């Protein structure tokens, strides 16, 4: 195992045991301690012997630890590297939904299946096969089928098209797009990730696309940080940032809701996009934006990642966050499909939580002047 390399590449050897990471970790609370500090120390002291697979799968890779680390230890990246080795040895996290989403990713990576992923398109949405602006759809069509009880996820994609149409852009959609590979990368299935990366890169590179717009922070982060061979002249934008730069072109009608914004880890702590979604919300007349105590870089993870290791800790994190949101606002807005799904799932059966969770782009599209 290339442990030394992982330690070097992710700055792990720079740890001086201050413990800020453990304090920042959302998995650490009264009676449960998840300590990146202890994990790092143990591995530095005992090498491979010191690796606890269970602890490696438990990490949410939310980057709260690294955000506070004075030595720039990239703990989530370190976990990712170790997971890559664990997968080779047959260890794997506990998959949610019987691993269906992981199976779908592997099937896409095989490159043989012909998907029907644009069935959600309707006549009211204007797209153009010749446009040089690509809207990367991501896995929303699958979420609609697998997680239908948590509302529609292509609603987000439709809203994205509507918003782009309203500023005069007819985006292009790829009918043979595959998953960006984020979850495969972060579960350590590196080869599957590389297959997905290759397929997307080939298909996009040979098109005339100049800009790619993402509604999903995970797709955006993965393309930006982990796609090595994408044509260099292609600009990558998360839709929140893209629209944030064009706020003057958007016309919204009155909306008297009181909302709070949940920063997702990939959009926030990974990519540092904190203000554009807020600017967009504030551009809606009458909309009141209130902040939860932990916001922006202090935002709390939605409790589970990569469709695995969803457990009572996840539920606790979600319910605590929702309780906070419901005491200050009518609605929690998020710009990440996973946050949306996880919070909506946590709301099931929690009648005392008087709040709603909504996607940022759905909210904005509903507020557009007709």
């Amino acid at each position, binding site marked *: 195992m290339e442990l030394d390399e992982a330690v070097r590449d992710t700055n792990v050897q720079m740890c001086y045991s201050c413990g800020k990471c453990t304090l920042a970790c959302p998995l650490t609370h009264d009676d449960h301690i998840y300590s990146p500090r202890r994990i790092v120390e143990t591995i530095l002291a005992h090498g491979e012997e010191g690796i606890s697979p269970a602890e490696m799968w438990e990490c949410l890779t939310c980057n709260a630890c690294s955000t506070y680390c004075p030595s720039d230890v990239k703990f989530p990246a370190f976990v990712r590297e170790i997971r890559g080795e664990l997968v080779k040895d047959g260890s794997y996290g506990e998959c949610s939904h*019987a*691993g269906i989403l992981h*199976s779908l990713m592997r*099937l896409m990576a*095989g490159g043989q*299946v012909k*998907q029907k992923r644009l069935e959600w398109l309707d006549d009211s949405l204007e797209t153009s096969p010749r446009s040089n602006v690509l809207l990367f759809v991501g896995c929303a069509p*699958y979420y609609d089928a*697998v997680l239908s009880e948590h509302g529609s996820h292509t609603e987000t994609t439709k809203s994205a098209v509507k918003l782009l149409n309203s500023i005069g852009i007819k985006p292009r959609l790829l009918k043979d797009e595959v998953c960006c590979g984020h979850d495969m990368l972060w579960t350590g299935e590196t080869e599957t990730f590389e297959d997905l990366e290759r397929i997307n890169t080939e298909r996009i590179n040979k098109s005339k696309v100049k800009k790619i717009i993402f509604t999903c922070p995970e797709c955006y982060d993965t393309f930006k940080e982990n796609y090595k061979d994408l044509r260099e002249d292609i600009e990558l934008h998360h839709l929140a940032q893209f629209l944030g730069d064009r706020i003057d072109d958007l016309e919204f009608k009155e909306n008297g809701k009181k909302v709070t914004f949940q920063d997702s880890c990939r959009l926030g702590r990974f990519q540092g996009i904190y203000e554009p979604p807020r600017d967009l919300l504030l551009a809606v007349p009458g909309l009141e934006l209130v902040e939860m105590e932990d916001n922006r870089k202090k935002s709390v993870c939605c409790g589970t990642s990569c469709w695995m290791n969803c457990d009572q800790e996840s539920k606790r994190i979600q319910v605590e966050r929702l309780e906070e949101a419901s005491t200050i606002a009518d609605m929690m807005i998020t710009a990440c499909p996973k946050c949306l799904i996880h919070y909506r799932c946590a709301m099931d059966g929690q009648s005392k939580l008087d709040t709603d969770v909504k996607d940022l782009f759905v909210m904005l599209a509903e507020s557009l002047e007709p």
Partner: protein
Amino acid sequence: MKAPFEPKILAFCCNWCAYSGADLAGTSRLQYPPNVKIVRVMCSGRVDPGHILRAFETGVDGILVAGCHPGDCHYISGNERAEERIETAKAVAEIIGIGEDRIRLEWISASEGLRFAEVIEDFIKEIRVKGPSPAGGDA
């Protein structure tokens, strides 16, 4: 010379009805093609869409889920759950391009050995016409 295509079928049979039906087919010496592997589950409602996709991933060409007739479920409403889950699995199979008709849900009681053999035969015939699963794999 490429060998002719032989479908690979995976059948999830519930312990109380379909699996006993398969047993009866065997003890009655009924003939049906050998292309099927049977997985016994306690209830057809136990079969998650994830299991079905995982099976396609490993290279099977068709999946049969067989449970008790409506109203006869040993667990009262497990087979109703199975119906919902198969609905989801079919929707997903359709989007990924495997096609919903590679998944079949059948009600087979413990006394229907003959019906079990007929269902298997018919399904294999259908998959033979459809050809190998687009997902590939080598189960």
